[in-house]
């Protein structure tokens, strides 16, 4: 059967049964719209968790020394230079970046103008030294290296800390909102070997220094400052603390698929993996995925109901049009022509339902985003959009409508094709 003839017959048939076609398409649109909406919401929230709240790089493996081990008591289980070299030599490891905590407490006491507002504040500061190459991409000012005692220490702040500051601390204290760019160059005093809450861990005097923000990084310490590794080593040496063993090593795998083997090898060396963030990301992602899956299942059920509705509607239509089908057979329609006509009618209904349902979901998402922007408080990590609609979701929504309609039309089309023209045209 020619396509133009098929399209003409389908158009005429749908025009005659436009009410039934509308309700069938509406059912499909409801199911597809709900599915696309919830998938978009799940993907959008998942993206926020993955990229903003717990930004993880699938190629990174954070190695830490074991909390307690027999090896450590005997001098093993440490992250010293030879161990780092062994880690670097593991198959699938592209690079190894050492990290060392500043092993004395530190405080900052700020009393001055803070971006136009008067600020007077003291707080504990954790400091972590990292190899410059690990964070080089996020450094916006100068070089990320230790210039020595008496010189400002280049410091990176966490992008997540900045987000928390902007969404909670700053509004509560009427302080200005800050961006990473605004913070670059900002200096603040840090006093090492001093604590407001505990005794200093090293004997001797405190050491005052100036920290200078050189950028914000996802890889920076969340509650503290991230400084060059050499600065951390220098400070630990100055206070007589361990400056030989590292607090951690970040391994970069050549490919995410190599990570499990690297993890096994690291554990085989008596070391541990710090995957707390990754597990939190995975747990949060799993919760979102589970909720999304439940809602998607509900939506698919609606699509199934729509398919059943189409099956009923088409069955009734085929019964009512038996004589008309017989006439078509008498003037030259084959069984496959009849089947094609019924399936094409359903396909048009399904495509229309799928497309309108998908469009409705996109519009609803737009509306929800607008409402959220206007009425929801500005909480941390609040995204510009709660939704993500990659093209496979959009195209898949339309195709699901088509598939549901065709599934519903399967048996009616077979029944129509089996019409006996001699019987229906008799009398």
């Amino acid at each position, binding site marked *: 059967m020619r396509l133009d003839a098929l399209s003409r017959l389908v158009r005429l048939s749908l025009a005659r049964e436009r009410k039934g076609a509308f309700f069938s398409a509406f059912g499909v649109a409801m199911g597809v719209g709900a599915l696309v909406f919830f998938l978009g919401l799940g993907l959008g929230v998942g993206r926020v968790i993955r990229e903003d709240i717990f930004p993880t790089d699938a190629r990174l493996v954070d190695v830490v020394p074991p909390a307690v081990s027999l090896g450590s008591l005997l001098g093993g289980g440490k992250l010293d230079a030879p161990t780092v070299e062994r880690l670097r030599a593991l198959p699938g490891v592209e690079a190894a970046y050492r990290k060392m905590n500043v092993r004395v407490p530190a405080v900052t006491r700020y009393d001055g103008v803070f971006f136009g507002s008067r600020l007077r504040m003291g707080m504990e500061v954790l400091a972590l030294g990292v190899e410059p190459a690990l964070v080089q991409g996020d450094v916006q000012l100068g070089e990320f290296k230790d210039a020595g005692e008496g010189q400002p220490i280049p410091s990176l702040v966490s992008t997540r800390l900045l987000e928390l500051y902007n969404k909670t601390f700053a509004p509560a204290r009427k302080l200005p909102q800050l961006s990473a760019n605004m913070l670059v160059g900002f200096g603040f005093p840090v006093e090492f070997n001093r604590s407001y809450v505990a005794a200093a861990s090293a004997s001797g005097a405190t050491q005052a220094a100036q920290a200078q923000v050189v950028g914000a990084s996802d890889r920076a310490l969340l509650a503290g400052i991230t400084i060059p590794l050499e600065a951390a080593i220098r400070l630990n040496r100055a206070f007589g603390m361990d400056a030989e063993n590292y607090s951690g090593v970040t391994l970069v795998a050549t490919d995410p698929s190599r990570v499990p083997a690297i993890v096994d090898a690291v554990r085989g060396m008596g070391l541990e993996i710090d995957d707390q963030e990754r597990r939190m990301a995975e747990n949060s992602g799993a919760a979102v995925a589970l909720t999304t899956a439940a809602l998607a299942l509900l939506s698919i059920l609606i699509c199934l109901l729509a398919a059943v509705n189409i099956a009923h509607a088409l069955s009734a239509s085929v019964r009512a049009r038996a004589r008309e089908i017989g006439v078509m057979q008498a*003037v030259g329609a084959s069984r496959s022509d009849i089947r094609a006509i019924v399936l094409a009618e359903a396909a048009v209904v399904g495509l229309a339902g799928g497309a309108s349902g998908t469009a409705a979901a996109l519009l609803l998402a737009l509306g929800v985003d607008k409402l959220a922007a206007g009425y929801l408080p500005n909480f941390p990590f609040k995204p510009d959009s709660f939704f993500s609609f990659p093209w496979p979701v959009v195209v898949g929504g339309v195709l699901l409508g088509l598939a549901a309609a065709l599934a519903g039309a399967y048996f009616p089309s077979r029944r129509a094709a089996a019409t006996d023209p001699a019987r229906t045209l008799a009398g």
Partner: protein
Amino acid sequence: MIQARDVTKEYVDGDGTRVRVLDGMSLDVAEGEFVAVVGSSGSGKSTLLHLLGGLDVDYRGEVAVGGVKLRGLRDKALARFRNTHVGFVFQSFHLIPNLSAVENVLLPSHFGAAPVEARKRAEHLLERVGLGAKKDRVPVRLSGGERQRVAIARALFNRPRLLLCDEPTGNLDAATGTGVIALFQELHREGLTVLCVTHEERMSAAAGRVLRLQEGRLVEERAGLHVATGGSP
């Protein structure tokens, strides 16, 4: 044009009884003949028509139309045969209600090769049956006679060699029926083979040969007078 040999057709009726409607029936119709088949109600006249037109191929024996043996043809080939070789005219017209007259006439064009200037031919055929001015009317806005004329135009659309008519005047008043019979006579004069199942005396009188179907077989009631030849309608 038509050769049927030892055709037997049975069906099972509502109470499960096997009914034989055609019992070793044979028939020969030459090209250009106008044959009327008469018989009592339920004698199998319509069944015979469905067999000859390829609407029903569940029978024993052999039927060939225009050299095409119908039994054993696959569905597509059978559909092509119905599309190109025969035209059907039914007692109840069987027009598609939401299609205009010209669209009804065009219906066979949807199931065959794309005809050149199909619409022009459909309009020509409607002119030919006297409905040129009503080509855009849907069936409900046409009289019974006009609907039957539309059905005849539809049957002629693909220039069939055989016209199979099932009580074509059965639902028409006398005057309208006369007009339809005259149209068949005209088509026959132009060379079309017409086989008409009928109760109508006037239709039988118009036919060149009359066969009676009784006890599942055809018997000659009136022999043919002449066989017309000519161009296509």
